[in-house]
């Protein structure tokens, strides 16, 4: 079976899901948004060795800009989405500067600091962001004609289309000549530089793509929840998405998306039935790092190879 056939079947299955899911459709929408968010981090984390520990800065910037645009009546759904993506790209330029000027642990700490600083700013600048209380978007937004965001399954299809296109785009980019250079930087940056590539420019561009997709996820999330608060920018979410990417399998695009979906479901179930999830996720993280550096997808792939033999 060619991967493309598998993907088409998966998207088709997901497209009819709302008819079966009923009231659970909103949960599916949320899972797809988290998957998109994890995908965007994998571009930096798994392909460019840019260990971004403040990825929520993009997500939150997108969410706030989108929410503010609608809240102040500057625009509707689509202009809000655009504002969100542009806003996260501005933060992306800042992280691109970090990528140009630092690497390794310093980059980790710089990105974490940025996430913390934006989180605190959202707390402190109550006049703009509403502070701790956040921003509520009471009215449903018009998507097209007389269809609004209040229609759960329409919004689900929209998010599905966006997420599937983002995955297709990311795969295309990684397989393009541009992507090959990014992977070459991951494998040996010095040698790639010696071959005449301006590695900094490639790192900045992949950071911007990652920021744009994360901001899109943030904006979609804000419109779904009709609410945004500083947590969307903070270190808790930043760490969570790192864990999703790692457990799913970094550098595989589809793996982190699966990781996000699996861990959100598991976390939710543990919360409901065991009254806490932190120990289990912590232990899962350690076990994954020690025994399965390839993550869930790495495990599935090696199992698949063994079955074929």
């Amino acid at each position, binding site marked *: 079976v060619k991967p493309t056939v598998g993907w088409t079947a998966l998207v088709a299955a997901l497209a009819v899901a709302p008819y079966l899911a009923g009231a659970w459709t909103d949960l599916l929408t949320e899972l797809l948004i988290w998957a998109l968010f994890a995908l965007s981090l994998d571009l930096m984390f798994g392909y460019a060795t840019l260990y971004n520990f403040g990825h929520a800065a993009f997500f939150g910037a997108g969410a706030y800009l989108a929410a503010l645009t609608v809240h102040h009546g500057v625009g509707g759904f689509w202009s809000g989405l655009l504002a969100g993506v542009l806003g996260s790209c501005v933060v992306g330029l800042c992280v691109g500067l970090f990528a140009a000027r*630092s690497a390794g642990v310093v980059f980790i700490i*710089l990105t974490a600091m940025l996430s913390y600083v934006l989180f605190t700013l959202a707390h*402190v600048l109550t006049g703009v962001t509403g502070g701790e209380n956040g921003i509520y978007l009471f009215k449903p937004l018009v998507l097209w004609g007389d269809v609004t965001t209040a229609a759960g399954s329409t919004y689900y299809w929209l998010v599905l289309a966006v997420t599937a296109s983002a995955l297709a785009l990311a795969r295309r980019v990684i397989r393009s000549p541009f992507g090959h250079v990014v992977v070459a930087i991951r494998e040996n940056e010095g040698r790639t530089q010696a071959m005449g590539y301006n590695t900094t420019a490639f790192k900045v561009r992949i950071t911007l793509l990652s920021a744009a997709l994360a901001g899109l996820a943030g904006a979609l999330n804000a419109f779904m929840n009709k609410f945004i608060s500083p947590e969307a920018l903070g270190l808790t979410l930043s760490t969570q998405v790192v864990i999703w990417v790692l457990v799913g399998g970094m550098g595989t695009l589809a793996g982190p998306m699966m990781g996000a979906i699996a861990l959100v479901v598991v976390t939710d179930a543990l919360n409901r039935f065991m009254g806490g999830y932190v120990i289990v996720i*912590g232990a899962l*993280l*350690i076990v994954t790092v020690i025994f399965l550096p390839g993550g869930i997808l790495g495990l599935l792939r090696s199992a698949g190879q063994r079955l074929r033999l």
Partner: protein
Amino acid sequence: MDAVLIAALNGLVIGLTLALVASGLALIFGVMDIVNFAHGDLYMLGGYFAWLGVTFSGSFAIGLLTAVVGMAVVGTIALSATLGPLLARHPLHTALATLGLGMILRESALRIFGGDAKVVNTPFDAGVLIFGLGYPLYRLAVIAIGVMLIGTVWLYLRRGRYGLWIRAVAQDRDMASALGVNLPAVYAIVFAAGSAMAGVGGALLAPITNVYHTVGLEMLLPAFVVVVAGGMGNLQGAAIVSVVLGEIESLGSLLIKPTAARTLSFVLLIVLLLVRRRGVGR
């Protein structure tokens, strides 16, 4: 003027405790290339150990001792168990494993000690008159103990036998090992010393901030920032930046909200790190 002096002293209390915690972090990073995301939680456990010691004995000195010994033992066991299988791996892997360890320690503390903040009584309530203003004697003691401990660690690294070995391993692990330095012993000592330094920091601040299971998270990022800005793994640089950060936060709080003051100091440090990439220590 008095308010400025009091704020400056408070800044010294924050800065020196941060320097202690960050020195432990810098030691573990400098010697083993491990980014210890569980360090804030070791700091938190130090506070709980101090609370246990003080509650059962009534003496703060015993509480402090409990924190040092308890954290040296618990920290070494926790870090070796998690990181033992990962020593030859990429630093990202050890960093992520300590992230998991921190989650486990934090949640365990919540389950064992409960969600309410534990109050550790100040060992002496007396105040000292400085320019006619009362200042708690305990805070001055924290400043003195902080300076003493950092000085001791620094001297031991310069003059002690294991200090020499630790510096040798930090410089060139393979060469040190080939020349007969006992690597596992050095690693165990670094884990023990690093955890004890986090623990003693948690114990010293416990009477000021109280102890709760997420108290370490507020310490983790500043400690990392200080280590990075001080020049990765450089103890002196980390100590200097800690005190500067503590003073900016404390003096800044006279004019703006404390969280805003911390954010401001972070923004300044981000700019500093982008301009001067190797930090201020070198």
